[in-house]
């Protein structure tokens, strides 16, 4: 199947409308939104907006069907066994906190959760808060020199007290993809569950949670061409069924009396209150669209740009690329340091060239510190990125040095 990134750009209104033209390379922070999501959301709000679940009037029926259809689309995108394994949340962070509270409440003092030093704060701070609440022990997988999670250390660090290994599927700083099979094999050896933070992976294609043989998967809509304010927690049915509720409110209960309440089955048990209905419908539309794309061609396109970018950066003696420089097992996210120049200043000057990059610690302070830095510049490529975007960045870097030095 052929893939034409230029034609694709027409499906992203912001890219088309931006004046002056925009070289958007901040996709790891938020991707631009695909028109299918915009249309699905505005259609929903204009033709079928209602609260879901308990309503019998025609709008409520339509809204409920659309919401559950979105759940089915998410299940399909992840190859989940059933839609009931899909919990809608307000984003990846909310999904990770749900696990840290609900699954976390089943842990005992001394139980261990294994993380890595490459985690985004959203897969780190919730576990620190759990440690304070329940006296669990956190262990951190170390990093290789180029910033990959060092799985060689796993065997030595795993103990029978480990109940969960929670790792990023793909680093938001280095783009490194975690070797899931190795993690899962080790986890099975001690009976630990495996959680993957997929926030930086799903924008590069559908995921097979059954094939990966994991227990939890979390991601956000806004990073995979979908809406703000919506995300997914997938969990294996038996795991979800054993989890106590987290947030309380309408829609997640059975019988409620002042003395106590009973709780609905998953996924409703974990969706307290009116959910982000329109946004779920928008995400469903995007996931259905993503499920049909020619991913081999997209991957080739993204890799070609990645190669061009890495080559351009490697050609400069004042630039240090963080993370793996080979093309294997990585996504097109590239962080780099320019000697003596602060990322905020770098990004500010690039902005004048219409190049949007992000500078800072990228919510991954331990990883950034591993590189001996306080912050870094990050260019992240999406399926709609073009050679012109990469070239504008590389050109802009010459001006950056001229302006700032």
């Amino acid at each position, binding site marked *: 199947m052929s893939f034409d990134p230029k034609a694709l750009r027409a499906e992203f209104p912001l890219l088309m409308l931006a004046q002056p033209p925009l070289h958007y390379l901040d996709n790891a922070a938020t991707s631009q939104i695909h028109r299918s999501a915009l249309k699905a959301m505005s259609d929903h709000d204009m033709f079928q907006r209602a609260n879901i679940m308990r309503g*019998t009037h025609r709008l409520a029926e339509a809204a409920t069907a659309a919401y559950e259809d979105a759940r089915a689309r998410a299940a399909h995108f992840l190859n989940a066994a059933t839609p009931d394994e899909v919990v809608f949340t307000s984003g990846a962070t909310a999904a990770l906190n749900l696990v840290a509270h609900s699954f976390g409440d089943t842990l005992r003092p001394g139980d261990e959760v294994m993380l890595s030093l490459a985690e985004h704060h959203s897969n780190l701070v919730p576990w620190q808060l759990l440690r304070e609440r329940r006296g669990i022990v956190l262990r951190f997988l170390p990093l290789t020199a180029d910033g990959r999670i060092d799985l060689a250390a796993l065997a030595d660090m795993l103990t029978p007290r480990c109940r969960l290994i929670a790792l990023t599927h793909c680093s938001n700083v280095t783009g490194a993809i975690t070797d899931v099979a190795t993690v899962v094999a080790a986890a099975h050896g001690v009976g630990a569950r495996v959680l993957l933070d997929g926030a930086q992976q799903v924008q590069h294609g559908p995921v097979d949670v059954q094939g990966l043989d994991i227990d939890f998967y979390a991601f956000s809509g806004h990073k995979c061409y979908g809406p703000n304010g919506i995300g997914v927690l997938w969990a294996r049915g038996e795991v979800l069924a054993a989890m106590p509720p987290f947030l309380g409110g309408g829609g997640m209960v*059975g019988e409620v009396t002042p003395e106590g309440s009973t709780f609905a089955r998953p996924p*409703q048990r974990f969706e307290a209150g009116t959910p982000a209905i329109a946004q779920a419908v928008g995400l469903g539309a995007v996931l259905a669209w993503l499920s049909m794309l020619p991913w081999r061609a997209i991957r080739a396109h993204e890799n070609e740009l990645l190669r061009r970018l890495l080559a351009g950066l490697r050609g400069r003696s004042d630039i240090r690329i963080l993370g793996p420089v080979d093309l294997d097992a990585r996504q097109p996210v590239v962080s780099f340091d320019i000697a003596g120049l602060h990322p905020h200043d770098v990004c500010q000057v690039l902005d004048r060239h219409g190049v949007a990059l992000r500078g800072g610690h990228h919510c991954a302070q331990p990883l950034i510190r591993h590189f001996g830095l306080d912050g870094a510049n990050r260019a992240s490529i999406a399926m709609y990125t073009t050679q012109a975007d990469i070239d504008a960045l590389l050109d802009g870097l010459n001006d950056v040095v001229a302006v700032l030095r």
Partner: protein
Amino acid sequence: MNVELYQQAIKDLARAGHGSGRLSAASASTRLDNPLCGDRITLDVRLADGKIIAIGHDTRGCLLCRAAASWLAAEVPGSSPVQFAAAHRELLALLQGAATTPAIRTSLLPFSPVREHKSRHGCVLLPFETLRRALTEAAAN
């Protein structure tokens, strides 16, 4: 399709309230809620010689739910659990469709307009699901 949901047959079934009230000496009793709409049924089943011989129930629910419970008490006694399972399958096929559609017994046909109203499927299915669970429990005893 705009077939009347509240056909006379459905109203009659609900009003008749076959099996209303709890059974003494039940082989199994099960309570089930539909948390989404608050319908609730407590159902007793008495078995003898591998046959369902009586059904009693206390049903708080809408007309469709009460009609379904009443249908069970009127139609099922005398059948085996396997025969009930066939009726349950037919109802599911009637509401949701099925890959291979079984022939659906006439007495269930008044429920067919519910098919168009997805939010009401649970109302009709709740009593059937409750009986299914009660039978599973009875088998385990």
